[in-house]
C-alpha cells in the first residue's frame, strides 16, 4: 500500500473516532455493533493496511447507519485469533471459505475478480511442482480441496501432489515465501500486489474474498435491516464492491470443497437402459416362405414415346 494511502487511512481513522464521539454524544441509547475483520486473502501487503481497511469500513458503516447503531471494528490478523474471538463479535467480515466452514450466512459479499491463482518463481507449469512445497494463506482445511477443484481443475489433489502445503497467515506471507524460495509456489488471489514478479501458472474459480455475516443474531436482529442498508452504502475500498447476500462465488465455493474428481470420480457403467435383452423368437415353423412370383397379368413394358422429339 502506498504512503499516500496510509496517510489517508490515518485521516479516516481520526475521522471515524471523531464520528464515534459524535454519535455517542448524540444518542446514548444507540446500539454498538462489534464488527470483526478476518481477511487473510485480501490484497493487503501489511497488517496496517488490513487494520486501516477495517477501521474505515467501521466508520463508513456507522455513518451510513445514521444513528441506528454505532460500530466498533476488531481486526483478526491470524486464524487463531479469528477462531478464538470471532464468535464474540456481532458481525464478521471474513474470508468466504472461513465463513463457509463456520456455517455463517452472508448478508453481503465481495468477490475477488478474477480468481485464485497459483504463483511460482521458477516453475513454468504446474506439473513441475510435483513433490515440491507450496504455500497458502491459512484458512480452513477445506481450502486445499477448493484450490484443487478450482485452480487445479480437479485433476490434481494438492495435498498429494505437492510435498507440503504450508499454511501462512495470509496471502502476502505466502507470496513472500515464494519470493524467498522457501516454497516453490503459492496460492493467492490473482492480481494480489505481492505477486508482482512471480509467474501465474494457472488460475480458476471466482473467490468469495470477503463476506459479511451476522454472528450474534439475537443482538443484531432488531437492526439487521438498517445494517444491510448501511452496508449497501459502504465502499469496500481495495477489495471492490459489496454485493447483497453471499454471491455466486460463495455458493459455488460451497460445492467446490469436496474431494477433487481425480480422487473421487466414479467409474462408468455400460449397458443399462439402452441394452435390451433378446426377445424370445416367436416362430412356430423354421422359416417363412413366400409364394413364387405371380406374373399373370402383370403390366408389361409398352412403348411410350416412339417418335423423335424434333421432327
Amino acid at each position, binding site marked *: 500500500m502506498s504512503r499516500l494511502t496510509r496517510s489517508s487511512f490515518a485521516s479516516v481513522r481520526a475521522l471515524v473516532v471523531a464520528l464515534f464521539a459524535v454519535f455517542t454524544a448524540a444518542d446514548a441509547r444507540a446500539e454498538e455493533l462489534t464488527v470483526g475483520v478476518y481477511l487473510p486473502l485480501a490484497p493487503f501487503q501489511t497488517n496496517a493496511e488490513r487494520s486501516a481497511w477495517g477501521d474505515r469500513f467501521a466508520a463508513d458503516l456507522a455513518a451510513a447507519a445514521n444513528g441506528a447503531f454505532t460500530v466498533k471494528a476488531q481486526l483478526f490478523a491470524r486464524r487463531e485469533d479469528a477462531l478464538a474471538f470471532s464468535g464474540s463479535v456481532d458481525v464478521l467480515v471474513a474470508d468466504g471459505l472461513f465463513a463457509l466452514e463456520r456455517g455463517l450466512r452472508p448478508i453481503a459479499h465481495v468477490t475477488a475478480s478474477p480468481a485464485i491463482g497459483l504463483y511460482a518463481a521458477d516453475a513454468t507449469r504446474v506439473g513441475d511442482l510435483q513433490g515440491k512445497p507450496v504455500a497458502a494463506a491459512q484458512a480452513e482445511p477445506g481450502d486445499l480441496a477448493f484450490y484443487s477443484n478450482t485452480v487445479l481443475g480437479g485433476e490434481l489433489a494438492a495435498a498429494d501432489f505437492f510435498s507440503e502445503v504450508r499454511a501462512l497467515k495470509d496471502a502476502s506471507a505466502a507470496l513472500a515465501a515464494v519470493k524467498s524460495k522457501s516454497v516453490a509456489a503459492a496460492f493467492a488471489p490473482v492480481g494480489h500486489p505481492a505477486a508482482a514478479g512471480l509467474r501465474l501458472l*494457472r488460475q480458476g474459480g471466482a473467490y468469495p474474498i470477503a463476506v459479511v455475516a451476522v454472528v450474534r443474531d439475537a443482538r443484531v436482529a432488531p437492526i439487521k435491516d438498517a445494517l444491510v442498508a448501511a452496508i449497501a452504502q459502504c465502499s469496500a475500498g481495495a477489495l471492490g464492491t459489496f454485493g447483497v447476500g453471499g454471491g455466486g462465488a460463495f455458493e459455488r465455493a460451497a460445492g467446490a470443497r469436496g474431494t477433487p474428481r481425480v480422487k473421487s470420480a466414479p467409474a462408468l457403467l455400460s449397458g443399462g437402459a439402452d441394452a435390451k435383452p433378446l*426377445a424370445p423368437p416367436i416362430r412356430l*415353423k423354421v422359416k417363412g416362405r413366400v409364394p413364387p412370383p*405371380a406374373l*399373370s397379368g*402383370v*403390366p408389361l413394358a409398352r412403348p411410350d414415346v416412339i417418335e423423335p422429339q424434333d421432327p
Partner: protein
Amino acid sequence: MVGLRTSSRLAALLGALVVSLGVFDAPPPVRAAAPGDVQRQLGEANDAMDSARTLIARGETRSAKKRLDEAGRIYRDILRSNAEQRDAAVGLSAVLFLEKRYPEGVTLMRPFHERLPDDADVSHQLGLHLYRSGEQELAVPLLESVASDPKRFDAMWLLLQHYYRQANWQAGLAHAERYLVARPDDVESLALIGTYFLKAEQFDRAIQTLDRFLEAHPGNVPARINRANALFRKGSFDLAGQEYERLLEEQPDKSRFLYNLASVRIKQDRCDEALLLLDRFLAKEDKNGPALYFRADCLLRLGRTDDARSAFEKAQTQGQTANPWVWYGLSRVAYRNKALDQAIEHAKKAQDLGPEEPELAAWLGTVYRKAGRPAEGLGWHDKAALLAGDVASYQIERGYDLWLLARLPEMLAAFEKARALDPTDAAATRGVAAARTALGAEAWKKGATADAEAHFVAALEADQGYALARADLIVLLVAAGRVPDAEAAVSAAPVEAAKHADMLAATALVRLVKGDGEGAFALAASARAGHSSLGAVIAQVEGQAAAAKSSWEVAAKAFEEAWQLAPAPPIEAAKSQAWLELGLERLGRGDPGGARDALGRARAGVTTLETEDRQTLEFALQALGVLSSNEPEQAAKALATALAGPRFAGGTWARVRDVGQGYVAYGWLRAGKAAEARKALERVRDRTALGAAWDSIASAADDVEARAAYAAGNFAAAEKVWAAMVQRGNADPAVANNLGAARFMLGRSADAEAVWRPLAERGAPLEAIYNLGNALGRRGDHRGAWELFKRYGDSGAGDAAKARERAGVKAELFDFGGAP
C-alpha cells in the same frame, strides 16, 4: 453440250460446203444404163461418199466438197437414166444432207418412201431431211423406226438431241446407250450423253461417261460442273464438294459455284460454312429466292431461330411471298419456338401455296400432331402419302399419328408399308417393333398369351435390338414356365439392348427363377435405377430375392409395391407373409413400435396365411403387448395368466407356453423386477424354445439386480453378481466393464485395471476406456489418463464432453500437447 457444240461446228463446215457447191447442175439427158454399169457407178459414188466423209472428219473442206460433187454427179446420172433407182436416190439424199439441202432431200425421198414405206434406208434419209426441215413430228417416227440399227448412229444422235431439247429424259436413254455402243470412239459426244444421263437421273452412268470425256478434255468446265452435279445428286457430297471447291478456286466470283458448294455444305450438315457461301452468293444475287430460303434454313438448323425468322421474312420481301417453302421455314421457326398455333398457321399457308407438295402437307400434319391434334395430323399425312405414295417417311408420320390415336393395327400397317418402301429406314423398323410390342402387351393384358408371344416375336424379327419386345417376351416365357426359352431370349439380345432397363428387369426375373437371388436383386436395382417400366416385375423380383435371404423389411416393401402395381392373390399372400416375418424379427430385436406396424399389416392379409402362421401372428400380437405396454408389470401378469389358462393348454401349445414365459420374463424385466423375471424363466420347460433369448433375459435379470446394488452404493453386492455372470461364461464386455467398475469403487483399482485394460485396447465398451483413464489418473499416471480421456472424448460416447474437458485440464497442467 460439247456434243452440241461439235455438231454446230459440223453444221458450219457443211454450210461452207454448200456455199461452195452452189446449186444443182442442170440434169443431163436421160439415157438408159446397163445394170452392170449402174452397179459400177454406184460403187464409184459410194467410194466418193466415203472419201468425202473421211475428209470432212479431217476438216479438209475443199477436198471433201470435190468428192461430194463427184458422188452427187454420179447419183444424178443414174437417176437420170432410171428415176426409180433407189440406191442412187439414197446416195444422193446423203449428199444433200451433208450439203444441208434438206427441202431438196425431202422432195427427192418422199416419192420413194411412198413407194417403199418399209425401206429403212429411205425412211432414214427422209427422216433426216424432214427433221432438219422443221418437220419434226413427221421425222421422229421415221427416225425411231431405223435408229435401233447400229449403223444409223446419225439417226440416234439426232433423236438424242431431239429428246434432250424436249427434256424427255426417258425417251432418249435407249439412243444414248446405243450411240455409245455404235460409236465407242466418239469422245466428243460423251459430254452431251453424260449430261443426258444426269438429266435422266442415271447418276453413275453420267459420272462414268463424263469421266471418259474429261480424260480427253480435263479442263472442260461444263463437263466438270455436270459431273459434280451428278455426284451431288448421287449423294457423294464429299466428292461433289471437292470438285466445287476446285471450280470455286479457279473462278472465285462464279456465283453458281458458290451456290452449288453451299448446297453441298448444307447436305454435309456444315451450315456454318454454307452460310458464308450463301452470303457471298447473295452479295451478287440478292433476290435469289432459293438462296435466301436456304440461308434461312441454315440459320434454323444452327439453332439461330430469331435470325432464321428474320431471314425467312427477308426472303418474303424479296419476292418470295408466294414461295410455300418460305412459309414452311417460318412454320419450323415457330415450332422451334414452341409457338405451335403459329406453326400451324404458317404450315397451312405453305400448304395453300403448294397444295401439290407432299412435304408441305406432311409438315402440316406433323405440326398438328405435335400440337396434340393427331387426328388432323393424320388427315394431312394421308394427303402427303397420296401425293407421294412411294415415300416411306409419310407412312412413318401416319404411324406416329395412329399411335397417338391408339389405332394400333393401322399403325402397324403404316409402319410396315414404310418398311416395304424403304427397308433401310430405321424409324420404320422401330415403328413396326413398337406397334407389335404394344399389340403384344394388349393381347397379354387380355390373356391372349399366344397372340402376345406372336407379336413380340414379330417385333423382334423386325428389330432384334428392340429391348421392350424382348423384355416382354422373356416375362411371358417365364410366366409360362418356359425358362430355357426365356434364357435363350436373354442370350440373343444384342449388347445395347441387353443394357436397357426393361431388359435388366426381365433378366433379373430369369436369374431369380434360376436361383440366383443375389444376381437378380442387383439387376433389379439397376433396372429400377434406369426407370424400367416393368415396375411390377422388378418389385416381385426384389421381394422374392430379399425373402430368400430373410431381408424381410425389403421383401415386405417390395411385395407391397408389387401388390399396388398388380394386385393378385399370390402377391397378397407373399406380402402378408413378409410383413409377418418382419414383425417377428422386430419383436426379436425389441422394437415394439416397428413390430406393431409390421404385424398390423400382416393381420390385414391374415386370410392368405397358412394356419400355423395365423397362430404365430395371434401370439405375436399378445407378446407385443408385453414389449410395448406402458405398464409392463400388468402386461406380464396378464400374459402369465393367459398362458396358464385353457387357451394355451395342452401339448400342442407347449412351445408357445415356453416362448410366452420368456415374454413374461421380459415384461418383468421392463418393470425392473428381476426376481420375478427369473421366476418366469424358471417356468420355461424347454429352454431351446427361447434360443439365445433365455440366457439374454437371465443375464439381463442379473444385471438389473447388480445395477440396483451399485446405484445404492452396495458395490460388493454388485461385484458379486457381475463376477458370477462372468464366471458363468457371460462374455458381454459391458458386464466385464461393470465388474471392473464395482471393483474400482471397492478400492480394488488394480483388479479393475486388469479387467478394463483388455477392454480398452479393444475399444469396447467405450466406458472401459474412460474408466481405465480415471483409474490411471487416480494413481498419478496423468499422461496415461490424458491419453485415454482424449480417446474416449473422440469416440462420441455419451460422456465424451466431460472426458475431453478432463483431458484438456491435464494437458494444461502438464503441458501434454495442448488441450483438445
